[in-house]
């Protein structure tokens, strides 16, 4: 595969990179917003091409069952978020919270972030994956701090420090993996290529692999926002512009978890190394229960859904931690559903915050009365994220609970306890926001409802009927994950 061939892989990378350069130059924000949408659409189409013709793996790029789904999901949510961002940005300019120069910077960063994430997903070289994740993180750090208010700076600073420490730990883990591979695979590039590693991992030194996995789990775990390392996530979500919160919650957490899964497969293949399952399950459960309790005292609507993202990342990690065909299938399904639902919710939250010009839950009341579309959209979104059945997330939670309850009743009990506490908190806040005596401005919101309702429709459809092709993929990957 010479790099010049115009196949899917190059397209998926070149389009965002090119668009970033172009957008950095263009002054007008309306045109650049449209271009941004166009670029994301093109990337999405390129990603779809993988379904048609899957390019064979090379030293640097790899398309296999696991990441093909995430690439498509990633580009699709990126595309819908760009549509949302186009209408969101318009309002920000009017209220003067962002200047034109900042918008140029914003659109360029948006595309670089998409480039970073796509690179991380399709890279075969674990070092390249590390660089890509680092790049995506740095761009989101900048965008979180774009508003320049006290809280935004503080959130960006916290995100940067914690992110850098996390990424440093991940790098150390990557080096350890290379050190473990080097005596078996030989020096040079081969030691970093994942496909080579996965075949020969049985002969690696188990102790070194264990230490490597610990560092990788904590390093990329910081990016996933699992409990002990979650510090940056709530403030980054709350203070950055909402499209960024949607992308952060919907995509970046998934990309980081994808990286952890890559290394979990490595470790699972080496019998001598310690089983990665219990470690993941422990972290997942801690995040779930911790985030569930933190939801109660939240006063800011975006921070509320940030903690909900931590909770759902906990659920997904717990599912992969439990392992087995059913639980892995549930984990993959949950990742897809969560990114769709959470970004849908953030679309609604973005417009709500703009219409009510506040993010404080206390100042938003009776939304289903004043803004029915937004109000009911949020109600269905929160019902979906809280795991109410007709929506897709219930199916994954159903599978996780039933498959774990037979094997480890206590764990399933704790899992259910976490779910119930989180459900209580989310619904408590939803009641304050969506119902009751309306408060605040009743000006109709000029907003694009398309992305929000598209996401909710997809999640509802997945809850009732999963297309067989998608099911086959997930089952194949579930066996892969071990």
């Amino acid at each position: 595969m010479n790099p010049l061939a115009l196949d899917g892989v190059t397209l998926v990378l070149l389009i965002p990179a090119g668009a970033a350069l172009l957008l950095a130059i263009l002054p007008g924000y309306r045109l650049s917003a449209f271009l941004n949408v166009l670029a994301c659409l093109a990337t999405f189409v390129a990603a779809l091409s993988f379904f048609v013709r899957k390019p064979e793996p090379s030293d640097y790029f790899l398309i296999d069952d696991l990441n093909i789904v995430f690439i498509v999901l990633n580009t699709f949510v990126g595309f819908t978020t760009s549509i949302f961002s186009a209408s969101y940005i318009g309002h920000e300019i009017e209220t003067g919270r962002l200047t034109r120069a900042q918008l140029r910077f914003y659109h360029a960063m948006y595309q670089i972030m998409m480039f970073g994430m796509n690179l991380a997903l399709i890279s075969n070289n674990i070092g390249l994956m590390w660089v890509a994740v680092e790049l995506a993180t740095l761009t989101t750090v900048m965008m979180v701090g774009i508003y320049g208010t006290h809280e935004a700076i503080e959130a960006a600073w916290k995100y940067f420090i914690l992110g850098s420490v996390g990424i440093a730990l991940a790098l150390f883990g990557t080096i350890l993996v290379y050190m473990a591979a080097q005596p078996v695979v030989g020096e040079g590039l081969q030691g970093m290529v994942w496909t080579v590693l996965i075949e020969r991992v049985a002969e690696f030194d188990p102790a070194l692999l264990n230490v490597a996995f610990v560092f990788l789990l904590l390093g990329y775990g910081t990016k996933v926002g699992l409990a002990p390392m979650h510090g940056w996530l709530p403030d980054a979500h709350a203070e950055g512009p909402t499209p960024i919160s949607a992308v952060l919650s919907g995509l970046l957490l998934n990309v980081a978890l994808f990286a952890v899964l890559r290394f979990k497969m490595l470790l699972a293949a080496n019998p001598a190394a310690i089983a990665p399952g219990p470690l993941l399950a422990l972290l997942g459960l801690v995040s779930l229960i911790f985030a569930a309790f933190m939801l109660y005292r939240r006063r800011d609507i975006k921070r509320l859904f940030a903690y909900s993202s931590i909770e759902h990342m906990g659920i997904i990690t717990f599912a992969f931690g439990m392992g087995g065909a059913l639980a892995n299938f549930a984990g993959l399904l949950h990742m897809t559903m969560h990114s769709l639902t959470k970004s849908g919710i953030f679309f609604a939250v973005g417009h709500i915050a703009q219409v009510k010009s506040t993010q404080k839950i206390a100042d938003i009341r009776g939304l289903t009365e004043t803004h029915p579309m937004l109000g009911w959209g949020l109600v269905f979104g929160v019902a979906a994220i809280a795991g109410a059945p007709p929506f897709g997330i219930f199916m994954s939670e159903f599978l996780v609970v039933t498959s774990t309850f037979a094997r480890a009743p206590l764990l399933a009990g704790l899992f259910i306890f976490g779910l119930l506490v989180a459900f209580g908190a989310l619904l408590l806040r939803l009641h304050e926001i969506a119902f009751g005596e309306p408060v605040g401005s009743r000006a109709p919101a000029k907003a694009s409802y398309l992305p929000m309702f598209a996401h909710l429709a997809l999640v509802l459809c997945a809850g009732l009927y999963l297309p067989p092709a998608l099911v086959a993929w997930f089952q194949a990957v579930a066996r892969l994950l071990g």
Partner: protein
Amino acid sequence: MTLPKVTDLTAWTMTPQLLLSCVVVLLGFALLGAAIGRRRSASPLVYSGCALVSALLLANALGALLLAAPPRTAWLAMGLPWIGAHFRLDGLSAVFLVIINLGALAASLYAIGCGRHETAPHRVLPFFPAFLAGMNLVVLADDAFTFLVSWEFMSLVSWALVLTHHRERENTRAGYVYILMASFGTLALLLGFGLLAGPDGGYAFASMREHPPTPMIASAALALVLMGAGSKAGLAPLHVWLPLAHPAAPSHVSALMSGVMTKVAVYVFIRFAFDLLGPPQWWWGGIVLFVGGVTSILGVLFALMQHDLKRLLAYHTVENIGIIYIGLGLALAFQANGMGLAAALALTAALFHVLNHSLFKTLLFFGAGAVLTATGERDMEHLGGLIHRMPWTAGLFLTGAAAISALPPLNGFASEWLTLQAVLLSPELPQWALKLLIPAVGGLLALSAALAAACFVKAFGVTFLGRPRSPAAANAHEVELWSLTSMGALALLCFAFGVLPGAAIDAIGPVVESAVGARMPAQLAIPWLSIVPVAESRSSYNGLLVFGFIITSTLLVVLAIHRFASHRLRRVPAWDCGFPDPSPATQYTAESFAQPLRRVFGTRLMQAREAVHMPSPGDQSPARLTVDLRDLVWDGLYAPISGAVGYAADRLNRLQFLTVRRYLGLVFFALVSLLLVLAIWG
């Protein structure tokens, strides 16, 4: 398309496929309601549509029940990918389909009339048809996933209906408590299914039936189902949400929630206990009996203390659910000890009470709804004397009140009589615990029946009789014809099943046989249409003859009086022991009526405390008598839990306001501890 011949007709009707298509039509109406909710013409259109579809569903279900058609299944490619969605129409689901769609038909007809006065129709119309669809789906589902999806869909939609009038503070609070308890119930059921499905994920009910669980797992599953279904039905500790949520919904919806949705929860318990869990243990019956007894007495005692009409009816739902679970507990106990006939009697009593309760509870809630529409008041202290202005509603409410108080010619007494006969059969049970528990529960059952009668004397007396206590009650007006027809139909059914209980018992027969393996003797074969629980010698009750007896004796008396006594009649002011015309406030109100009973039962159970505040000698302000009741269950169970969660949330909340350094400390701590783990066990 040629007209299907009669034989094809039966092949085509009474199948899950037809019922599912009706459910889809209902969902279509829901979307229609959402689309044109705000227009005036929308509500009669949607409600009449629902009425038609419910009527069709009712006909099919009735056909399947009466013809005792063999179970038929249907499979759709939806739901869990590798299992798909299974649906099944067997005897048990046919009975509950009849109950659901009977209530749905009545509620739709009622809503055509009273629905017009609904202040926010656009919030009710989209969800009402979906609520009906959800209930029908739950009863038809035949695998764990489809069941739980339709179960929670039903809860979600009814939650949205509870929040129709979301502006009042207590309605949103009621909605929140309701959806939280509903989700607790669903998670309990989820765990129950997890146990039955096993690690390999055999979620279809058919596969669960093939390999029934070991007794230990079956007992755990039963406990989970008792919590799950019990929280929706309103069993003792989990009933607190019911009196909050049911009154908050519009009247025809609260009638459906109380009369019909609680029955869907009973269906779930029966489907688990008698179908999926295999042979029962004897102590299962004991637990269910105990919970049923406590629920019934708690429900009726709290109902006595209420002065909000709809909340009083909701508490009565809790009481009647307790009576139903007493019947189910007896059935489980008898089946565990191999007494087939007795188990059949107990289960028939429970199912018959399910049917009766859905009838008269729906009727009573329609009555309360009519009062609310006419006067805009739910509080009995502001009503009174409505019998003069709303004679028809008063008469129909009286029939419902008489039925729920188990007075002879009506259906309430028939199912109560069967349950008492079942209690009388239980001395043959060998276990000591049951020997001591059943008489006590029998006592509780009798006490709650008597208290129910007292409570409905209060409810009817204070609301309809006496003199109007407020201008709203003074100029109330009768409700539309539609509502009256649906209430009238329900009252007629109460009479029919009261006078001819044999018909209903025979219809339930095959269902009981499939669940318990034995059935009651064919009642219609017995001369004079009387019903006999087990054998002729034991005892028999003939509704028709008693009713005829009363009618003839009344006619005789009327003729005699008409023939011999004087006809003179004079309208005079009330004697009232010589007091001149006292103001309506001197009448007995709901609080004062319940005062003796509160003194007898309330002091310990509800910490009922009365405080009299006399004004200081000089000023003219009126003396006040305040009564404060404490809900022990709420203080003992729910307040501590929410307090604990609040405390934990406060403690953990400090983690949100840490400095960057401390967050790094957390990461550092995690890294070091994991490395330690590796160093020790690596």
